[in-house]
Structures are given as structure tokens and as C-alpha cells.
């Protein structure tokens, strides 16, 4: 199985994703440079990693969405290719229109780095199918602009189509105001596109996937993805 990790100028979780895919899951993993607009068809899936592409200047993801590689990512996604966007990757997917809504500055205007709990709302996606038994995941977040927003009608359509995949919750699974770290609408932490082949999430599954650490819930996301083939 072959996967690609896209590198934008300013990506900084690219190595982490690469490490998890290549060394923990032992997949054939390749870098994809942002200036590359060649087809991605050779990959089984593509990851857009976290970081500060283009310094997050103007709006996170606003500039990166125009890099040549994003043209290829859009083509790939339209053909059904599986795309996982993590943190900054999620922001880029939203800016590029591959995912609905927008990601805005955190409610308290500060960067937040800490482990949070999320509940898997839909296991009917290639990214979460293995979470049926374990729908509550403890995964770290690390972002400044993770407050999800969508217009009412968009949100309604997403709900109807089960595109809201992850929500921030308490350790026991209750979705509450108190467990919302950034002020996201409806506690939304991750969403998929209509066809469920594109998924973006603010928490960093690659930060809880290495067996060296006590938290390994992030593995479920990667394992689901790998198993979906």
C-alpha cells in the first residue's frame, strides 16, 4: 500500500505523519512536494499534515490552497481518492472547498496544545470504521484556528448526510460546552465531504499513534484507513 505526505512550505507535522505511516504502519510512504502538480493516482491515500503552511498568513490554509499540488489533490479527491487533512491540512481542505465550512480563530484567541477527548459520530467513513467499539478517542490538539463554522443550511445538510464525524466531548463521551476547547460550532472536531473520501480533523492522530507513548487512540484513524482497502 502506498501513501503520500504533502509538504507545503511551513508544514511541520509532515515528519510525524511520515514516521507513523512508514515506521509504525510500515507503509510505502512518499513525500509530495507542494510545487508538484502531477497526478496522485499512484497513491492509495494522501495526507495533508499539520503545521503553519505559508506561516498561516492572511488565514490558515488560504495561500496553500493555491499551490500546484492542491490542483492535483482536488483532481484526486474528485476521482474518489482518499484524503486525510490533519490540523493545518484540515484548514487547507476547507479553504480549497473540498470540505464544507470554515475554520476560525479559537474562541479564546490563543494557541492550545493539550490532549482532548473526541467522540466519533459517524463510523460510516473509511477513516473511522474501526471506532465502532471504541467511539471515544483521546487525541491531542495543537492549533490556533480550529473553531469550526458552517452556515445553517450547510450544517443541516452535513448532519443529514452524516458528514460530522468527530465532536469534542468529555472523557465519558458527553458532548458539552465545557469540553469544547476552541468554541467550535456544535463541538465539531472533524468533518467529511459528501462522498466520505475526504476527511479533515483538528486533533493530531499521529501524536497518539506511536507505541512509545501511553496514548494510542490515534492509531484507530490510520488503521481504519488502511483497512478500508
Amino acid at each position: 500500500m502506498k501513501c503520500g505526505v504533502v509538504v507545503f512550505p511551513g508544514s511541520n507535522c509532515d515528519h510525524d505523519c511520515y514516521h507513523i505511516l512508514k515506521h509504525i504502519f510500515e507503509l510505502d510512504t512518499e513525500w509530495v512536494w507542494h510545487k508538484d502538480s502531477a497526478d496522485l493516482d499512484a497513491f492509495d491515500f494522501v495526507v495533508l499534515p499539520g503545521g503553519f503552511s505559508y506561516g498561516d498568513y492572511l488565514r490558515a490554509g488560504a495561500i496553500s490552497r493555491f499551490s500546484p499540488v492542491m490542483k492535483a489533490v482536488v483532481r484526486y479527491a474528485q476521482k474518489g481518492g482518499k484524503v486525510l487533512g490533519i490540523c493545518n491540512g484540515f484548514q487547507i481542505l476547507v479553504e480549497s472547498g473540498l470540505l464544507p465550512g470554515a475554520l476560525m480563530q479559537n474562541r479564546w484567541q490563543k494557541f492550545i496544545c493539550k490532549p482532548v477527548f473526541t467522540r466519533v459520530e459517524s463510523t460510516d467513513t473509511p477513516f473511522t470504521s474501526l471506532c465502532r467499539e471504541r467511539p471515544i478517542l483521546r487525541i491531542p490538539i495543537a492549533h490556533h484556528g480550529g473553531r469550526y463554522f458552517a452556515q445553517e443550511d450547510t450544517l443541516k445538510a452535513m448532519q443529514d448526510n452524516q458528514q460530522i464525524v468527530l465532536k469534542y466531548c468529555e472523557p465519558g463521551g458527553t458532548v458539552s460546552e465545557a469540553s469544547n476547547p476552541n468554541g467550535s460550532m456544535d463541538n465539531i472536531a472533524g468533518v467529511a465531504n459528501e462522498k466520505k473520501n475526504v476527511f479533515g480533523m483538528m486533533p493530531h492522530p499521529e501524536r497518539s499513534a506511536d507505541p512509545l507513548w501511553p496514548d494510542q487512540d490515534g492509531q484507530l484513524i490510520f488503521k481504519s484507513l488502511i483497512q478500508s482497502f
Partner: protein
Amino acid sequence: MPKSKKSEALPEVTPDVVAQHGLTVQEYKRIVDLIGRAPNFTELGIFSVMWSEHCSYKSSRPYLKQLPTEGPRVLQGPGENAGVVDIGDGQAVVFKIESHNHPSFIEPHQGAATGVGGIMRDIFTMGARPIALLNSLRFGDLSDPRTRYLLNGVVDGISSYGNCTGVPTVGGEIYFDACYNGNILVNAFCLGLVQTDKIFLAKAGGVGNPVIYVGAKTGRDGIHGASLLASSEFDETTEDKRPTVQVGDPFTEKLLIETCLELFKKDWVIGVQDMGAAGLTSSSFEMAGNSGTGIEFDLSQVPLREEGMTAYEILLSESQERMLFVVKKGHENEALAILDKWGLDGAVVGQVIESPVVRINYQGKEVVNLPISPVVEGALNLKRPKSKPQYLSEVQHLDLTELAEPPRGDEALIKLLGAPNISSKEWVYEQYDHMVRLNTLVLPGSDAAVMRIPDSSKAVALSVDCNSRYCYLDPFWGAQIAVAECARNIVCSGGTPIGLTNCLNFGNPEKPEIMWQFEQAVLGIAEACKFFDIPVVSGNVSLYNETKGKAIFPTPTVAVVGLLENLENHCTQWFKNSGDAIGLIGLTLEEISGSEYLKQMFERCQGKPPQLDKKQERSVQEFCLELIRGKWIQSAHDCSDGGMAVAAVESCITGPEKALGATLNLESTLRKDALLFGESQSRILISFAEGKGESIARMARKNEVPFAIIGRVGGSRFTVNINGDEFIHQEIQALKNIWKNLIGDYARQVS
């Protein structure tokens, strides 16, 4: 300060102009003597920055010679951008700490951000990939809105810069004391990892080799920032110096890191230097100076951000995120291609020449022609007078009988846990990405951060420390305690200290009392480092931390790096299991002086710092390491601010899971407050499976280390009984709540 003028109309060098450049009449005469003529205006600017306290260490250099800088692992001691210490298997760590105090006071966000950027460049200039950042921060009274503004700005600045560059900020320290009201301290530390055969130095060898400018364009940022800000006290005219603030661009820094690391893989790179304080000037003089060569360059080639810049401005600009490379002739296009790949500006600006001078042309004219050694080494080593300060004899005296012994300890404990210096720093480190790159084994919140060395079974432990109250009461012993305590933090995490870097923050060195404090603190660090066998491999000096004649407490911040040969032997400070026994390694004396307890309960900063028996300290540390490596214990936590009681509560509440209660049963003839809240040195609180107690006690006797089993983990309360009487009894969750939110609650207030 000179306004931008066309280069042909250089201002005359008058005594006034000399004085404005912070040079004395005597220094000016020396310049004329050394170069055999009067300098022109641009050259004067160069001398002014290169001979500033910041660049020349003219007040401090002789003292720094006392520090032990050698050891079997030391590959590079002080003198380069950062120190390098071997960790085996062909790898080394590169680290240094540096101050950005004055800029952060003027513009906290940018000041702190560029401080982080600067120290990172010092690390990757050596060929190392930066893998961890720490910072040591001091602010004034937290109840002052100005402090909160500075706190928010500084933390924002560090967070924005470190997070964006993808280097985790894994630890640090924050203290609040009114002595920092007018002078905050922002000391940034960075550690990088390098192959021992790939270390780069600031060299400019090989006549004819091109000099390449790499990174951000040059603007008018921070002109004279380093020299003026680092060598003059604050007063009403500080406002006028404001426009010199430089702005950091972490995105460019990130690209610069990747670009440099790619360049370093090429065998045609000869040397590299970052443009820090005094920018292009110091980097070119230093590179040539280090290699006995000269440099010739043309400022017209320098990428500029603004129009109409003079040679003076280009040379002294402190625009951030810039480096100078020397490569082998013929490889300049390859180098520029790598810059282009990463989207950075760059240009060949000059070449290495044989004669040891720096010659600079601009717009077809020679604007500078200076021999190197007068500029780099010519500054006088000042023998500033020193004298023991008067205040010492007053403050060192403390009569314990004047302090009423409290009948119970609850009130003091609650007060201490809610004191800014002790309460949780989570609000701060939550804003730092401390996990990126997946190497942080022990996250912020324990005695030391532990970083895995990628692709190996090793780890390094990092900690930064200084109790400046102790240093105020006795700089010699205070500085020794800083070293001991920092090393103890490393040991509690399972590391063996292998190197130290220091940042010496003091008041105005022109005052004999300040020079005395400085001397004593350096002697203290030297003595402790010699005793504990920890080489000092890098450091930085920040003087003139003084406002309207009021100096900060002497603050010789030290950062210690420790090695764990086996990363599995790392240890954390929190209790792990209900039912485990609690033990105390080390001896508690009747010491209250200098403590946070004395400050919080009696509003005094008085007495001598706690005693430090270095032999005992060493035995305690060795014993603790033996216990960790033998897997005897579950947790180890150094007793410091707030004493044993605070250490015990911290072990209850700092774990990632739910808080655990504990009961301590103590037998003692000491005052109860000294027993619980005194800050006796060389003590470590441990926890272990109950059945192991006897063996541990036996090992302690064998090691001749004081040890006692003092309690047990469990329940939902924190209880302390002394000689059978209850002294403290509190819900642990309530204590945690008091401790947890204080700084954030303050920081969020605006007025």
C-alpha cells in the same frame, strides 16, 4: 540617532556623535590609536556595536574565564554560537541560552519572538537541527496590569514563533517578583542535534571563496538595538528608542532551518554565521576573525526591503532570519538553487580576501576599510570596581523567634499553592506546541522535560532554573544552588547531567555592588560546576537590567542538559498508584529564610539561602539515579519552592490522570512550618511499591544518604500528621483547583 541619509553625506564624527554611539572618550581614542586614523561615521557605528557590552563582554569577560568549560564529552565550549556535547554513537547535542530582556520589555510579543528566533539560529548555524526550546521568564507583580500585558505578549510571542517553526517548547520557568517590575527577563534556550562529523563553525576560509547572503531582506529594523538597548538603563527617554524594534517572521525562519540543513549536507560549504546582534557587521567580522582572513563585500548586492538605505543602516540593521555563508568557489549557483527551492532570498555579496580586513563598498565607493582584530578584540577589558553591597548585612539576618509558628498548616499550604510562583504554569505551556516532532517523552509539568533522541534508545533531559531570591540574599550560594537544583531536576527525571549553559542577568555593572554580585554568582556557578563535574559550554550575559536606579535581583539562570542512555529509565514527578509508599531522600533542616513561605506569610525576603552541602547533594542525586535505573521507584520529585508539603501536593495533582490523595506521617523536633515549608536543599520525594521500602532503606544506608518512609499515596485528601497530631487536612481536588487556574485567571484580566 542618525536619520536615513544618502551615503555620500556622512555625518561628521563629533564628540557628541561619539557619545551618542555609547562610546567613551577613552574608547574613541583607542579606536584612533588602533586603526591609525579617525574612523568615518559608518566605521564608528561598527565600533559602537562591536564594542558594546552585548558583543564585547567588556565588563564580564575576565570573570567568565573562571568557569570550567572542559570535559571528556565537550566538543565545543564557549566561543562559538553554541556549545556542543557528545552523547555517543556519533551524535552530539548543541545548546545555548540567551537573553532578550530589553526588547521584550519594549515590545513583548516581538521581543520574545525574536529572542526565540535568535537562539534557534545560534543552534542550526552549528549544523544542528533544533529539537527543543525552553524559556526562563521573570515578571514583576502579577497584580499590576502592566505585568499582565507583558506576560500575555511574551507568551504569545514565544508561542507564535516556536509553534510555527515546528520546534517544540518543552519547558521553562516563570517567576514573579516586584524587582522585575521595570525589567522583565526573557531568556530563551534551544537544543539541537548534530552528527559529530557535521558540526559547522563560523569560518571564512579560502581566499576567493564567495560570501553568500541567505534569508530575509534587510530593512531598518533594530538599528543600534543591541548596543543601545543592552547597555543603557531604562528611563523616560526609553520611548524614543522604540522605533528600533525588530519584527520576527517565523515562517521565514522555518524555511531558513530547512534550507541551512540542506546546505550543510554539501561538502562545499565552508562556514556559516547567523546575523544576530549587529547583523551583517558582526557576522562578517567574526567569520573572518575566526579564520585569520578578510572579507570584501558590496552592499549594493544585499537584498533590501526598503528604499534609500545607507551603508550605515545596512551594516547595522538587525533584521531577523538572515545568515551569511561562505562556500567553495564555483558552487554559488548550486547554493542559490537550494535557496530558490525553499523560496528564500539570497545573493553573493562578497568574497574572502587574504589581508585581515573588512572592506565594504557601496554604490561604487569604499565606505568601510577596517582591520579585523581591533574591531573584534580591541574593546577594553574593563576592570570595573566592585564592593560588597550594604543591604546584605541587613537582609541576611533573620530571627526565627520573630515569626509566630502557626498552629496548623492548612492556611499556609493554600496560600502557597495559590502563589504565582508555585501555582500551575499550564496556562503558559498550553500555548506552546510541546509535542511536535514526536520526541517529547515527558511533557511540561514535571521536574525536567525528557526528549527522545530520534532513531535511538537515548533521551536527553532539560531543565532551566534559578531562585533569584536566594541570589539576592547571597549570590555565591544562590548561584551554586541554581546549579544543584537544576541538576537535581535532571536527576529526578532519570538523566545524568552532561553540560550546562547560563544566562547572567544583572543590573548596571558600573555600580560596584552589581559587579560584586556578578563576580560572586560566576564564582558560585564555577564552584558548583567543578564540584559536580558539569562543564559550562555556552552562555550569555545581560547587564543593565535596571530602571531608575533599581536593579533586578541577581539572576544567573542556568540550564542543565542530562543524558539518559536508555530512554525507558525516565521518571516523572507524580504519584502513580494508590497504596504506594512515599519516601523522602535527604535531610530537612530548620530553614525558613529566603523561602516562598516567608514571603507569602510574612512578606519578607530575608535570611541566608538554605545551606548546600555539595557532598550530600551528590550522594542524594546518585542514590536517586540508582533507584530510577533499578526500577525501584514510581516517581521522584525535587523539593524546592514551598518545601516538602508543596512537593508532596504537586506529586498528588500533576499527573495526567485524576488527582491522588496522600497522607504524610512525620516525626520531628523542628518547627512545623520549617519542616513542611522550609526549602532545605538536596531533598527528593519519591514513591514506590510498599514492599520495596525496606530494600530502599537499606540501599540508602549503604549510600550514606538520609532516607525516611514518610507516608502513603491514596484517598481523596491530603493529610499531614506531625508527631501524631494532624497539621494539614484538605480535599486534594480543592487544592488542585486553587493551584491550577491562578495564572490564567490573572492573565485574562485586562485592567
